[in-house]
């Protein structure tokens, strides 16, 4: 054991040598990582990126020897700080975890012990690592919290985890992880699940600490933009293999593996709009782990594949540390486009129903996608003074407050805001799933809608439908797809033959096959489930479809296919969308107009281009600057301070003043600003701020500063 424990000077912080990891399920072994070799040098930040199921987290847990009970390292070696991880005794492993390696993972709320105060949880790190306790350990804990920029460490130390916000919890965990100056810090999706502005803060913090403490980082994320921003080098994982690796700028600037190219193209590029053509998709499905050997893991989904690719597995090739497991790395960027224009056969298995009519060609010229023409006298959907107040611990909390908006036929209104902003509450009010406060008005084509769905006529119900965020929960698991869609047809009074043909038509239009109709949701992938959800929403021929974060539970390659589908359906059927999302690029791609919500209030509304171009409400500005993007302009970052107010401390005046980086002063605390036009020529663009629009524009144009583009414009 001696040689294992002895540290080679200047050893890599982490090194995988031909690492394979398998999970046992039943009597079968599934290999989820195969032949991974990588090294993270001291002080280096290394990103692992890939979609769900590619083995990212497994790699992270292997690096700290904490695999699930049914998992084992089936080949290769792991070195942490020069020590052979698999050769360590239990005690040595514990020491290594104490001193040399720390980990931060997703969902900070669950990573802290709910029944212990923060001080206890922080102090025990020092107790075990340095043998100090009591006041000394407490003082060190306080220092650490100050270091992660927690303003009131004393208060946090005395708190229980549930009394802290998600961002604060993650700071505490980062502080704990860095307490012992580890050689390696593993970050496994550390900001997934946090709001964009909080995510930006946490990422800033990590970047700052890294510069300060000179630690090595293994950063795991599904987000190319986050990895691109945070890491010196990046490895792209696909189906348990490292398909491409190299310096971030080169991997993202000149990708040499078709999967990397596909992934980058799937994300709506900054500023891209639906009338500029469909998004890219990656056809097919991720293969089962360990099911592919003797050929390229990506061959089934690769537009560049030749016979050679299915006859042998390509070895990693490349120079200057930019490696790719592809026989044709130079051709990666020539990967054929895989938008919605691809015949359905390429995406869906054989047996697909032929679409009732060709859908997509019209989109190429963008003619059909132009924003709807002059508004008719009566908007399709109109809300006036729409409010919903909940009682939280006896105190009124306005989840939605005095919202007045219009939605025209064929138009997409994007609804943006962080958690707690009231986006989903607003959607529920419109649909009649919850009952608004008295005085609220919701009108459909000028006709006032009853507040509860149960009180609405079949025609009104049919007109207003929804696609839910989580397709797993939105589909009744005991029913077949045929039944799921079919039951919605009864609303429009279709039965028998007519219903059957309509069912097939709807299924075909969302590109479901005959086979899928007889399956139950459990047998479908996330993307297919969401297609069923969309089919159900469209079955009755709706006028308005609320899309409540329809792609946030999906991987990017699936997301792009769903977004394309939504765009196609809108072009075909002239429906209006109320599109809720936290992803600004997605909202921008899809929406004609955008509304920004904060604490249930409408802070800004206007045509997409105007909202993105500015002047912005300071909150919108903060959202935009927190928006992770590989290629967009990096505005000088505006950071929000403080925490989202809750029912107990709802601010007076402008609800945003407690966190506003551009707060004027007294007036913001006293008076709620009106929703005022953003300039004399601003058509339909309005901002709720005391600062006049021209001054906002002036202040904001100074801070804009285009960042050099990393990637070629995928458009």
């Amino acid at each position: 054991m001696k040689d294992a424990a002895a540290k080679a000077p200047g050893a890599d912080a982490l090194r995988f040598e031909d690492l394979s990891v398998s999970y046992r399920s039943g009597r079968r072994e599934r290999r989820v990582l195969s032949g991974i070799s990588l090294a993270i040098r001291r002080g280096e930040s290394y990103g692992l990126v890939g979609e769900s199921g590619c083995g990212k987290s497994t790699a992270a847990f292997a690096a700290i020897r904490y695999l699930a009970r049914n998992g084992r390292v089936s080949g290769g070696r792991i070195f942490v700080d020069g020590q052979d991880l698999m050769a360590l005794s239990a005690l040595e492993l514990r020491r290594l975890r104490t001193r040399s390696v720390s980990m931060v993972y997703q969902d900070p709320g669950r990573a802290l012990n709910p029944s212990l105060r923060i001080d206890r949880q922080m102090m025990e790190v020092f107790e075990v690592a340095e043998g100090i306790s009591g006041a000394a350990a407490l003082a060190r804990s306080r220092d650490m919290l100050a270091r992660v920029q927690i303003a009131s460490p004393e208060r946090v130390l005395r708190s229980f985890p549930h009394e802290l916000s998600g961002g604060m919890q993650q700071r505490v965990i980062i502080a704990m992880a860095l307490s012992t100056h580890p050689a390696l810090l593993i970050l496994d999706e550390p900001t997934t699940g946090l709001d964009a502005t909080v995510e930006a803060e946490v990422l800033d913090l990590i970047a700052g600490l890294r510069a300060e403490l000179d630690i090595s980082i293994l950063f795991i994320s599904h987000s190319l933009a986050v990895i691109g921003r945070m890491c010196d080098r990046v490895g792209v994982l696909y189906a348990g293999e490292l398909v491409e690796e190299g310096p971030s700028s080169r991997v993202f600037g000149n990708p040499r593996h078709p999967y990397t190219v596909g992934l980058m193209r799937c994300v709506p590029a900054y500023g891209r709009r639906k009338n500029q053509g469909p998004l890219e998709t990656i056809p097919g499905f991720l293969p089962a782990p360990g099911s592919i050997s003797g050929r390229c893991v990506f061959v089934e989904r690769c537009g560049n594949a030749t016979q050679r690719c299915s006859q042998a597995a390509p070895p990693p090739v490349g120079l200057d540390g930019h490696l790719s497991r592809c026989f044709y790395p130079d051709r990666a960027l020539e990967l054929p486009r895989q938008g919605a224009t691809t015949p359905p056969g390429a995406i869906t298995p054989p047996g697909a129903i032929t679409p009732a009519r060709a859908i997509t060609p019209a989109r190429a010229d963008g003619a059909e996608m132009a924003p709807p023409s002059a508004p008719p006298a009566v908007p399709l959907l109109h809300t006036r003074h729409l409010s919903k107040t909940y009682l939280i611990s006896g105190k009124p909390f306005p989840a939605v407050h005095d919202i007045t908006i219009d939605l025209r036929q064929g138009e997409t209104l994007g609804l943006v805001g962080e958690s707690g902003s009231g986006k989903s509450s607003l959607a529920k009010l419109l649909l009649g799933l919850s009952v608004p406060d008295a005085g609220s008005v919701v009108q459909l084509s000028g006709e006032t809608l009853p507040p509860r769905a149960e009180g609405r006529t079949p025609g009104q119900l049919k007109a207003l439908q929804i696609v839910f965020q989580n397709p797993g929960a939105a589909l009744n698991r005991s029913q077949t797809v045929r039944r799921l869609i079919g039951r919605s047809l009864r609303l429009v009074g279709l039965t028998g033959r007519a219903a059957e043909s309509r069912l097939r038509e709807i299924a075909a239009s969302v590109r479901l096959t005959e086979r899928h109709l007889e399956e139950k949701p459990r047998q479908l992938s996330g993307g297919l489930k969401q297609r069923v959800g969309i089919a159900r929403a469209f079955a009755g021929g709706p006028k308005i479809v609320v899309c409540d974060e329809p792609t946030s539970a999906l991987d990017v390659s699936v997301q792009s296919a769903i977004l394309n589908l939504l765009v196609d359906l809108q072009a075909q059927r002239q429906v209006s969308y109320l599109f809720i999302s936290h992803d600004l690029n997605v909202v921008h791609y899809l929406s004609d107009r955008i509304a920004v919500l904060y604490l249930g209030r409408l802070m800004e509304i206007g045509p997409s281009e105007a909202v993105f171009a500015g002047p912005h409400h300071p909150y919108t500005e903060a959202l935009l600057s927190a928006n992770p993007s590989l290629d967009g302009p990096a505005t000088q970052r505006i950071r929000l301070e403080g925490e989202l107010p809750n029912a107990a401390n709802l601010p007076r005046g402008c609800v945003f003043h407690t966190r506003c980086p551009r707060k004027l002063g007294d007036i913001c605390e006293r008076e709620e600003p009106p929703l005022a036009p953003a300039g004399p020529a601003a058509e339909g663009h309005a901002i709720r701020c005391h600062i006049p629009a021209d001054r906002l524009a002036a202040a904001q144009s100074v801070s804009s500063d285009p960042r050099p583009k990393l990637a070629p414009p995928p458009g």
Partner: protein
Amino acid sequence: MILRFLGRRALLSLITLAILSVIVFLGGQLLPGDVGRAVLGPLADARAVAVFNHQVGVDRPLAVQYWDWITHFVVGDMGRSFTFRAPVAPFVGAALLNSMKLAALAFVMVVPLGIAGGVWAALRVGRWTDRALVLLGQSLGVVPEFISSIVLILMFGVWLHWLPMSADWPEGAGPLTQLKYLILPSLPLVLVFFGYIARVARAGTVEALDADYTRTAVLKGLPMATVMRRHVLRNALLPTITVIASLLGYLAGGLVVIETLFHYRGIGALIYSAARAKDFPMLEAGVLTVGAVYALASVLADLLSATLNPRLRVGRT
């Protein structure tokens, strides 16, 4: 915060008890139809029945009867027994005390045993030892007390002669002798509750072991003993407290059978003999006492959980 929580909880228990008292009252007065007829039997003279009904007051309107009964009950006047022609309260008090001795002995044995078994199984989750313990606990839990009593009596009383077969200890026996007489009657309760407690302790421990915060603790490099004590067990055993309190409710049911079987003058035997003799005031008093003990125990358990679980203290349940 904690006072508010406790206040809420106590109020809920009072409401529960009030509902319970109505149920018990209706069960005792309404279900039999004609109380006098039920007590005196089908051959009794109609006049005697009427006289009896008038004497005990069941010829008055139900609401009046209930109000009269419950207002006396809360101040300790539980009514007069039909059988003994004497106040019920002293009987109930003595019986409750006896039952508590028996229950305490059973709990002292089964709680540590059940928790230890559950944690032990959780640490071996998925292995055959875990499975065997779970199945054993479950199986013991569904065997009626009188069946396990019979087996235990045959073993320790009849064949081995280790323990007395009845709980009826000699007059003036000291605590140790009483203990000896109580061991055999308490064992069936231990057998019934063991699997139940072990199952909850096991589930809690398995959940805590799989929790992210346990992973955090392990990855901090804490010694396993500290991880278990400070992070796993603390969270794992919280639900067990509530379950143990709720077992007090089932306990009284088991006592009916066991106290009868072992000739022990506890609350179960009292309820049983009152039911046999159709002594409704005694029956109602005994049953409502059992309910009150249960309600009290669950308030105490909630209080204990709240002190151990900071999330509950916020007051939003």
